């Protein structure tokens, strides 16, 4: 089996799993309970949040723990009642919320990078929230978030000079980024940032929203008032413990992994034949997006599946309910290019031999499919 879809899901690291285990069976107390063993759980929970927060240069109380990135994105948008701008290539969990709140889309350049001119054009005195992901989930493109923050700073200063009171916030979904980029909220200049354990070898169903001081959110769930009253419900202690361990491991291996993936990408692309490379230079090191001319990539997915090679496609696939990728469309690809596109994301389940083998198997599948089409 060769798994090449680490942008979709990652296995839980064995160390992460081991760290979580006691909190399911022995350390199970409700952190809100009064007795000492429960207080210890509460302390462990806060310490774990602290580890996660520390990685992005924040404090434990700056994080609202959620059940995954989708919830964190939804919660982030409660900060805004005015106009909203969002990058057109955002994940559905941003796009759908932004659309529901009347948000307007910011264009991307053919490179997949944010069109900063379009951003400037669209900001008005009523704009309250701008949402730009750090790494796009389909292309792996890393957005120049610090530049966006720079523009926002300029506009805020200008508003102050003119006495315009409207706040202007920057939200970023950093779900895909935590294990391959150094993510400092101060350096990136974000007010709100979504984190996700499931993409960095942590458990699924756990995420967090970083909230800068002074940003006011509204809770989506009411109840016991956990997470600063913004996310009621008994704390997911094992989830947060696992998240923290995953973050710790990610940080430890950050530089080694980047070098490793960059090398694999180079090998993979040199062994692969007859393709068009879609992401050229702004993508994360473990992302490869390619298109095979005249091929229905979903057929490739099934052909590769039969060889136990698992990849994703941006084509109109059943899994995405027949909707072609809005991301690939936004960067100006033709229907034909989109139909033939595969997304390959390397990760910790792979090694160099697998990378070479995958290229060989994909070449074979493409050859077979071309032969079939030509009768």
């Amino acid at each position, binding site marked *: 089996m060769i798994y090449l879809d680490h942008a979709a899901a990652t296995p839980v690291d064995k160390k992460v799993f081991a760290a979580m285990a006691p909190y399911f069976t022995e350390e199970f107390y409700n952190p809100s309970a009064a007795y000492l063993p429960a207080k210890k759980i509460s302390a462990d929970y806060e310490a774990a949040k602290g580890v996660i927060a520390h990685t992005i240069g924040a404090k434990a109380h700056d994080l609202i723990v959620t059940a995954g990135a989708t919830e964190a994105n939804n919660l982030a948008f409660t900060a805004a009642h005015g106009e909203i701008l969002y990058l057109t290539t955002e994940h559905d969990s941003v796009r759908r919320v932004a659309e529901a709140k009347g948000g307007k889309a910011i264009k991307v350049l053919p490179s997949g990078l944010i069109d900063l001119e379009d951003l400037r054009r669209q900001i008005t005195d009523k704009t309250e929230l701008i949402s730009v992901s750090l790494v796009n989930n389909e292309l792996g493109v890393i957005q120049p978030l610090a530049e966006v923050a720079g523009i926002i700073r300029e506009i805020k200063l200008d508003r102050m000079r003119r006495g315009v009171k409207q706040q202007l916030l920057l939200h970023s979904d950093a779900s895909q980024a935590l294990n391959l980029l150094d993510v400092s909220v101060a350096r990136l200049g974000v007010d709100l940032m979504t984190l996700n354990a499931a993409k960095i070898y942590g458990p699924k169903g756990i995420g967090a929203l970083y909230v800068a001081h002074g940003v006011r959110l509204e809770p989506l769930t009411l109840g016991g008032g956990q997470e600063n009253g913004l996310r009621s419900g008994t704390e997911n202690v094992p989830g947060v413990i696992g998240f923290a361990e995953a973050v710790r491991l990610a940080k430890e291996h950050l530089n080694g992994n980047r070098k490793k993936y960059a090398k694999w990408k180079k090998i993979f692309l040199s062994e692969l034949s007859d393709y068009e490379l879609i992401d050229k230079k702004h993508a994360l090191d473990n992302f490869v997006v390619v298109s095979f001319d005249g091929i229905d990539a*979903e*057929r490739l997915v*099934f*052909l590769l*599946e*039969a060889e136990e090679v698992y990849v994703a496609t941006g084509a109109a*696939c*059943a*899994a995405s*309910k*027949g909707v072609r990728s809005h991301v690939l469309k936004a960067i100006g690809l033709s229907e034909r290019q989109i139909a033939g596109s595969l997304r390959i994301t390397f990760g910790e389940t792979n090694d160099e031999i697998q990378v070479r083998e995958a290229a060989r198997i994909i070449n074979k599948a493409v050859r077979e499919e071309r032969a*079939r089409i030509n009768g």
Partner: protein
Amino acid sequence: MAKTVYVGMSGGVDSSVAALLLKEWGYKVVGVYMKNWSRDLPGMKCPWADDLADAKRVAVKLGIDFEVWDFEKEYREKVVEYMLSEFKKGNTPNPDVMCNQEIKFKLFYERAMAAGADYIATGHYARIGVEQSGSIILGTGSARPVVTGEPPLATSVVTSGAPQYNTSGLFPPILARAADENKDQTYFLYRISEEALGHTLFPIGDMLKPEVKKLAAEKGLHNAYKKESMGVCFVGEVGMRDFLKEYIDVKPGEIREIESDRVLGYHEGAIFYTIGQRHGLYLDGEKGVVNDGMPYYVVKKDIDKNIVYVSKNLNHEAIWTKELRLRDILLRRFEYDVLGTGSARPVVTGEPPLATSVVTSGAPQNIYSKSPQDNISSRPQDSIFEPFDSIQVRLRHRAPLIPATFDGEVLHFSSEVKRPASGQSAVLYDGKICLGGGIIV
């Protein structure tokens, strides 16, 4: 040149094996997923995306072309609207019958033919009768078993053409029950047009369900043991009332005991209830409901007054009958022409042969000889309807066949039958041959 077949692929094992067989028989095969419904309903996830992926996965495995045809608008107009309007009239329609008539064997057929198909095919359990030297031979509709008496693989045989639709002018295409009596789906197919039937292949019609599954598993099809979808394709049997509530307002009314006319409780609208139903009745314990562990059944509905009548007596006269009047009757020309003597079955053996043992070989099993005295061409088409004696009737899918006679409007049974809900179909058979049917009034 190999003939081209467009096969409807639902993602299930039956249509997957149908496609597999067509490929093995040497046809040029194009798989088509008909997207008829994709909306999730409260508490019910529509599995269309998974089904589509299953269908495409099989198509890729077989190395055949695959397309998705979007019929959602037409399905909504022709099937769902029909269904809702029938329910509003107090009837219990059968959407699968309508889906076959309007979508699979009309829209799909027409579009496939326009795209260059010689035939369409589906994974239905049913057979086609074709004329061969004065006999009617039941099979898949493909010339393969008929000509060679041998199993698959000869392209040359396939190209000789399959159903003998109107080539002789003697036999219109004949719909017949599947080899697997337990799975036979002709109950849902009796309203499809002759023209479509004349260009239809039922590749698994000769097989038993366990054989279909076994073949799928042997050929490595991943969905060999996929759970079958039951009932109405998109809601499932239990979901019908919830589905209807999405479109029809709840209108509370009385439940009365039919014998005493006493009000026993209340219901959510008579149109949501079906004769014979015993669940979902809100009976009021203080109103004379007899709690002896025996359920009350719906035996009658008054749509105008919005009253549902119930009884504990399963023998109540309201639910038993010896006669059923039909409307929207559709009978195949077959019986006018060939069976018009009154004996629908000029069978040599006197008995319709049973089809179970031989099925896998693909060889012809059921041979109905044509009486030499039949002078078909001279029989006027507008001759007075002659009653059908000694036919068999099926009142619901997989229900037993009941002997009956049909006078052109009313079915007569020799002993009482449980009255099906109005709007359901009665399907008529002579031996294995499906004569057509009608909607129960």
